[in-house]
């Protein structure tokens, strides 16, 4: 399914996750964040970088991983991405929604 964000057209799944990471850039991330009610700050981007690095390394994402990441603690993570942090952060990062139950 195609979605237009600003000047760009991206393909997303039914929930709004990008299906092709190569289409992602920071502007797209910023716009998706706005739709989720999140105004991006440097700290937000630091986490998005971390998440994208894990994705590129094909390492699964989990809340436990966030705890160990050294980038952010869990409390801050929930505060920055309220209402389902990993779900929202991965959507902004342009990668698939995590499949893990933990």
């Amino acid at each position, binding site marked *: 399914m195609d979605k237009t964000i600003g000047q760009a057209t991206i393909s997303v799944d039914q929930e709004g996750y990008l299906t092709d990471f190569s289409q992602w850039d920071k502007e797209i991330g910023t716009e998706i964040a706005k739709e989720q009610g999140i105004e991006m700050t440097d700290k937000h981007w630091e986490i998005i970088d971390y998440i994208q690095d894990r994705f590129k390394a094909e390492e699964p994402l989990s809340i*436990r991983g966030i*705890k160990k990441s050294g980038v952010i603690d869990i409390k801050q993570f929930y505060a920055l991405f309220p209402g389902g942090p990993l779900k929202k952060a991965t959507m902004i990062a342009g990668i698939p929604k995590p499949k893990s139950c933990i």
Partner: protein
Amino acid sequence: MSETKVKKMLFILSKATLENVYAAFVMANGARMEGIESEIFFTFFGLEAIQKKKLEHLHVATVGNPAMHMPTMLGGLPGVEALASKMMKKEMEKLDMPPVGEFLEILSDSGCKLWACKLAVDMFHLEKEDLIDELDGVLTIGDFYNRADQEGTHLLFI
């Protein structure tokens, strides 16, 4: 993204077998990850999961558990329960499931409220020092029901 209709999950954990404790923890954490509020009320044997000295020594039940696929008499032999528990913990570690103590930290940091049941705490003669630091308080069941204060709240007994 569609808004979920479940707003709050209240879990009552009354058992201390690994499989029950993890069921409650995974579901409570999963709720937070979906933007749903969650709280756990530890009562009766469930209190073992929040006792500092006991929480890392929980076992899976090998007796009276047909899904273990071992004869009940064998499951009752000394050491069998410990061995089965060790094996299960190893498998869980492979799936990156945190041990009980770390899981409680994650839950607390995620905003999941952790409550101890007053009646059970009194019955087992437990003191505040016996219980984990992350505990949000000791409640009566009436207090706990009062926390089901919004539409879309569900209670689950484990």
